[in-house]
């Protein structure tokens, strides 16, 4: 065991340290100094403290260049992880900006504290290549998100959503842990790269396949892939809207990133084959099955929804299916960097779009609810917000020149090029393109209500705060700009991947 100085450790973990301290500060400021103040002021103060911590963390991440791999992958810091952490903290900041006018709780300090702790969990998740720290970080994220889901104590559905999320999550965590214990037994190590080395030559050992399926179950739950998706619609609908936005964006980003690492690094060598009619056991056919099921069920079930939050949940399930294509593209070690770049671009733009969509839903909710009927004539009641909604929905559907289109384009190109010889995964790409055509239908349903349908007689104009306007406009602008100039994001991602030697 090499000794390392705590000062170096602080240098590597600066952003996480700042966020943990901020979470304590948010708690103390709210419970200590502001206890008797009116609620809006407490939200503003808590949000201010959190935003300050987040901005400091982003400054640290972008200015302090550090690269290290401590104690066999327990802590990995390289340009790629730093970039993904910047994305995570940015998503936290947008979520905070959207919660400033929230009315669902009086426990302001605890709310911000949990948001921050969930983000810290996600950041550790991104930074580890050791299954022990991955498991602990995964649980830190999940436990914080369970509580955030159930945070609206007055609401029956919020408590129900929290419990369902927790019970599914608990079983999934148990499966992951059991799978990891088997992998530890087979490989004798918890480091991803050592696992891959030690597993090489084991072929398709039955115990290894059991372990693989169990690990995939745990991560499949986190990314809400069919058939482990059952919690997602309930959690999205029942959770307070800003909490749902974080579950749909930040948690997705971190889980997909670490899932990709576990599969591509830890299970390198047992990919199997997913080419049409040449299937061979390994993780590629398993993930291909999940991808097909997610795209099919997500898109078809979304059509039948009347609650827009549920619709977004099923759309998230479908998007998880598309994103799994990025993981499949990483099955070829020579093309791994392409797949990773496409995946990181896609999850980043998707996360930003989803936060925006939830922000709009939150504004519509103030006029009565989140069903499609509440969107009727929305463009006449709040024109700017409705335009933002249009940008988000069209980007989710994948219409050029928005970010969603280029995300899909890079992802599908990477997947189709993964097996250069025989176009192995082309069948999956064709299926994905067909399914994204289906998805256009339900996104346009929402837009039709908002722009074409006449408003109801008693419809009232929603109250939109300046902060919400600013956040939504910024998010919509980001979606347009990253779509029109994808190199602005893809360039740094490609550089980071190269520098990280992925």
């Amino acid at each position, binding site marked *: 065991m090499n000794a390392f100085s705590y000062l170096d450790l602080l240098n590597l973990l600066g952003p996480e340290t700042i966020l943990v301290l901020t979470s304590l500060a948010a708690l103390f400021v709210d419970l200590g100094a502001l206890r008797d103040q009116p609620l809006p002021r407490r939200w503003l103060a808590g949000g201010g403290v959190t935003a300050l911590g987040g901005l400091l963390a982003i400054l640290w991440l972008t200015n302090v260049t550090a690269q290290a791999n401590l104690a066999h992958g327990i802590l990995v810091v390289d340009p790629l992880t730093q970039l993904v952490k910047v994305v995570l903290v940015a998503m936290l900041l947008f979520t905070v900006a959207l919660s400033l006018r929230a009315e669902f709780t009086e426990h302001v300090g605890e709310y911000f504290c949990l948001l921050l702790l969930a983000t810290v969990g996600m950041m550790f998740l991104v930074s580890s290549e050791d299954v022990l720290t991955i498991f602990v970080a995964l649980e830190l994220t999940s436990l914080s998100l369970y509580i955030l889901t159930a945070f609206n104590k007055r609401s029956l559905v919020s*408590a129900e959503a929290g419990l369902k999320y927790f019970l599914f999550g608990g079983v999934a965590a148990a499966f992951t*842990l059991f799978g990891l214990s088997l992998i530890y037994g087979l490989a004798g190590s918890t480091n991803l790269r050592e696992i891959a080395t030690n597993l090489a030559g084991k072929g398709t050992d039955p115990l290894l396949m059991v372990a693989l399926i169990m690990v995939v179950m745990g991560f499949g739950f986190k990314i809400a892939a069919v058939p482990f998706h059952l919690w997602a619609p309930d959690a999205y609908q029942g959770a307070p809207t800003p909490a749902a936005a974080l579950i749909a964006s930040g948690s997705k980003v971190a889980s997909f990133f670490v899932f990709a690492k576990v599969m591509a690094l830890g299970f390198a060598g047992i990919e199997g084959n997913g080419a049409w009619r040449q299937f061979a056991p390994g993780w590629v056919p398993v993930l291909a099955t999940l991808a097909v099921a997610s795209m099919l069920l997500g898109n078809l079930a979304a059509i039948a929804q009347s609650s827009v939050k549920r619709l977004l949940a099923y759309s998230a399930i479908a998007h998880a299916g598309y994103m799994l294509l990025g993981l499949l593209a990483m099955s070829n070690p020579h093309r791994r960097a392409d797949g990773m770049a496409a995946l990181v671009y896609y999850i980043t733009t998707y996360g930003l779009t989803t936060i925006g969509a939830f922000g709009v839903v939150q504004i519509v909710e103030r006029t009565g609810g989140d069903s499609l009927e509440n969107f009727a004539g929305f463009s006449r009641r709040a024109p700017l917000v409705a335009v933002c909604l249009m940008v988000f929905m069209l980007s989710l559907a994948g219409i050029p020149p928005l970010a969603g289109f280029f995300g899909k384009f890079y992802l599908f190109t990477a997947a189709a090029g993964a097996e250069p010889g025989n176009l192995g995964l082309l069948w999956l790409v064709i299926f994905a393109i067909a399914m994204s055509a289906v998805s256009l239908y339900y996104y346009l349903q929402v837009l039709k209500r908002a722009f074409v349908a006449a408003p109801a007689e008693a419809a009232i104009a929603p109250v939109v705060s300046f902060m919400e306007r600013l956040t939504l406009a910024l998010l919509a602008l980001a979606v347009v700009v990253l779509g029109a100039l994808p190199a602005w994001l893809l360039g740094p991602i490609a550089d980071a991947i190269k520098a990280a030697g992925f």
Partner: protein
Amino acid sequence: MTTLQSYLILSALLFSIGLAGALTRRNAILVLIGIELMLNAANLNFIAFWRYGPHPEALTGVMFALFSIGVAAAEAAVGLALIIAIYRHYKTANLDKVTTLKG
């Protein structure tokens, strides 16, 4: 049958009992107990693999088991809090009655 195998059979049995409990019980607290059993089955695996593995001096398995015991405790705390929140609204912990969200 080696000693390691008998430990693995015991842990597989524990895991199955836990899963069966989690899937069939209607009371949220009993489901939580099932989940705890599954986690403990994995802990038993870690200890057995550590003890009979090639590198018992590395202590990785013990560390993993210790961490997962801590995580399981935190999970139980959060789970019980959520069950209390459900009980406040529904006046029951029976999962068959908690069915407002559908679709």
